């Protein structure tokens, strides 16, 4: 008799999700699905709000990555005002985005994923958590907390608070970085650089223990998408969109991110509140078509950003990138390597921050530096798209306003949503590899969850489609058989 195994809730991720694993009569995995059970609705309830409120409203989509929404929203506002923001404002926004990447990636690695990676996926569940990590690797755990704190402090220095800072606005930013704040950040650079290099060293030592996971955690061909600089380097705030395929061939380049609808389509599936973005020219992938190289499935985030760029442009991070590509055999397709990519991006962000802190455009009020932080204008366009790289991937805020600047329509394409197809494929792949017959060890189910955690999904951000909330209620008995169910579409 076919069975269904349900993991609900998926633990150690941001937001709420469920995974369903379907077994056939022989007890082998026939399919698996990743369901997002949250519904947020920002796209709908923002209609009618003034443009000026949007950074503050959309920042509250998430408590982990509010800066990402703040910046994408402000950039959409820049387009609607039709302004070029002052150089100092752009660089300050970049500084905050780099800090955001550091704090978010640190949380993901040290708090959410490190217990699996450093303690082992089959270790005692009661200890496979942050306390177990502290007991096993106290210095690493302390360093990780201070690393996240470093990112949070920069955000607080600029925006006045660590979570939901009211700082980036259409036209620029509200406040500059004070000289004292700059000195404080500079003084911490050596420590955080040492921490991340130690973490990278530790992770690379452990890689040999996870050969099986590296092969089976979402290791499939797909496209990769993200922002790059005009010269093709690693980018996090501006630039143009690039797609590469699983072999690293550039298949689309110098795409204007504000014309995203030409190359990104959004599909909806009944089993999840999360939309399913796909690369439009290649079409929505057939769910039975597992590894078709011509399918429109693409991934975003750290794995994608390191696949699409030629190099990062900072010395230590580029050394790590070369080793990363050697280990991953070129263009890296295994989603397990998201953890590795995240650590490299933390290092890249630290190096970029160090460079930015010496930029004369940031030294407001001092000799030769401008005091301008904001371009003032009214509504000059009735639509605008703001795009930046959130820690988890490319983020799009698409606004339409009326002549008074009131929101008429909002479309948000969230980083995690763009990895939705990838997460579903990963869950199915892991389940097929690690679950066989009636023996289902806790470590096996943890690997399915861990596969999702590799993407570091932020499900709180990702679910905003309007409409009546579909419900599926299942009554499942002790052997996994569904004995009653109710659907509301």
């Amino acid at each position: 008799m076919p069975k269904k195994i349900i993991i609900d809730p998926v633990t150690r991720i941001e937001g709420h999700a469920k995974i369903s694993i379907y077994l056939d009569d022989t007890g082998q995995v026939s399919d698996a699905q990743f369901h997002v059970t949250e519904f947020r609705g920002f796209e709908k309830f923002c209609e009618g709000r003034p443009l000026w409120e949007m950074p503050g409203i959309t920042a509250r989509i998430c408590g982990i990555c509010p800066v990402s929404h703040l910046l994408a929203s402000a950039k959409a506002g820049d387009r609607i005002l039709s302004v070029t923001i002052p150089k100092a404002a752009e660089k300050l926004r970049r500084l905050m985005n780099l800090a955001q990447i550091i704090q978010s990636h640190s949380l993901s690695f040290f708090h959410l994923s490190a217990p699996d990676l450093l303690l082992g996926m089959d270790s005692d569940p009661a200890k496979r958590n942050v306390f177990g990590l502290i007991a096993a690797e106290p210095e690493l755990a302390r360093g990780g907390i201070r690393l996240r704190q470093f990112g949070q402090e920069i955000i607080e220095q600029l925006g006045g608070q660590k979570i939901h800072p009211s700082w980036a606005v259409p036209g620029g930013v509200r406040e500059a970085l004070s000289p004292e704040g700059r000195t404080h950040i500079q003084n911490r650079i050596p420590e955080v650089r040492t921490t991340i290099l130690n973490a990278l060293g530790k992770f690379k030592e452990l890689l040999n223990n996870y050969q099986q996971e590296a092969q089976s955690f979402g290791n499939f061909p797909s496209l990769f998408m993200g922002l790059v600089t005009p010269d093709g380097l690693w980018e996090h705030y501006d630039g143009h969109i690039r797609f590469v395929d699983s072999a690293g061939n550039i298949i689309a380049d110098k795409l204007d991110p504000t014309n995203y609808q030409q190359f990104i389509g959004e599909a909806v599936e009944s089993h999840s509140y999360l939309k399913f973005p796909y690369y439009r020219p290649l079409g929505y992938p057939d769910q039975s078509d597992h590894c078709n190289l011509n399918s429109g499935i693409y991934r975003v985030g750290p794995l994608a950003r390191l696949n699409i760029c030629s190099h990062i442009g900072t010395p230590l991070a580029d050394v790590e990138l070369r080793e990363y590509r050697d280990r991953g055999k070129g263009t890296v397709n295994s989603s397990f390597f998201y953890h590795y990519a995240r650590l490299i991006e933390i290092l890249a962000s630290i190096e970029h921050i160090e460079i930015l802190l010496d930029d004369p455009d940031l030294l407001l009020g001092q000799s030769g530096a401008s005091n301008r932080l904001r371009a003032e204008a009214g509504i000059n366009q009735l639509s605008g798209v703001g795009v930046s790289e959130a820690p988890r991937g490319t983020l799009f805020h698409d606004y339409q306003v009326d002549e008074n600047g009131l929101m008429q329509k909002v479309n948000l394409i969230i980083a995690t949503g763009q990895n939705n197809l990838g997460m579903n494929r990963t869950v199915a792949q892991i389940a097929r590899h690690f679950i066989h017959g009636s023996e289902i060890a806790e470590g096996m189910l943890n690997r399915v969850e861990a596969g999702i955690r590799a993407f570091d999904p932020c499900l709180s951000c990702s679910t905003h489609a309007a409409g009546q909330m579909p419900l599926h209620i299942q009554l499942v008995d002790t052997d996994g058989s569904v004995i009653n169910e109710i659907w509301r579409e």
Partner: protein
Amino acid sequence: MKAHAIAIGYGNELRSDDGIGQKVAKTLQLSQVKSIAVHQLTPELAEVLAHANLAIFIDACLISESFQVKVQSLSPTSCNIIAGHTADPPSLLALTQALYNYSPPAWWIKVPGINFELGYSLSPIAEIGVAIALQKINQIIDANSNLFH
């Protein structure tokens, strides 16, 4: 060297009475108390706690849980594992203990609120609770003044 006392008031200021904790923290003015107002209790606060002689947490509670301002002494417990970026006071103290082999003596002040809907202001009951909480903090500091010498 450890700092003096730390008062951490937390909650969502956009949810009316859920902002009680932050209001107390922002109102408190005692020279020997460092006051922090935050949205959530995050793991980074463990380092702040590691340098404190005494800690006081302030949060809102449902009036159905208590009609009065309650003061509860705390000990570190990892029963509520910090699964991500948020924690409650006992688990944050446990994290501090695990990381730094020390956690300060701590109290948790819970102030009843009646309105947790969207809004910026506190209800009259919450405002009274804030005033009482500030008195309670004074009492805790006075009763434990030996920790600051």
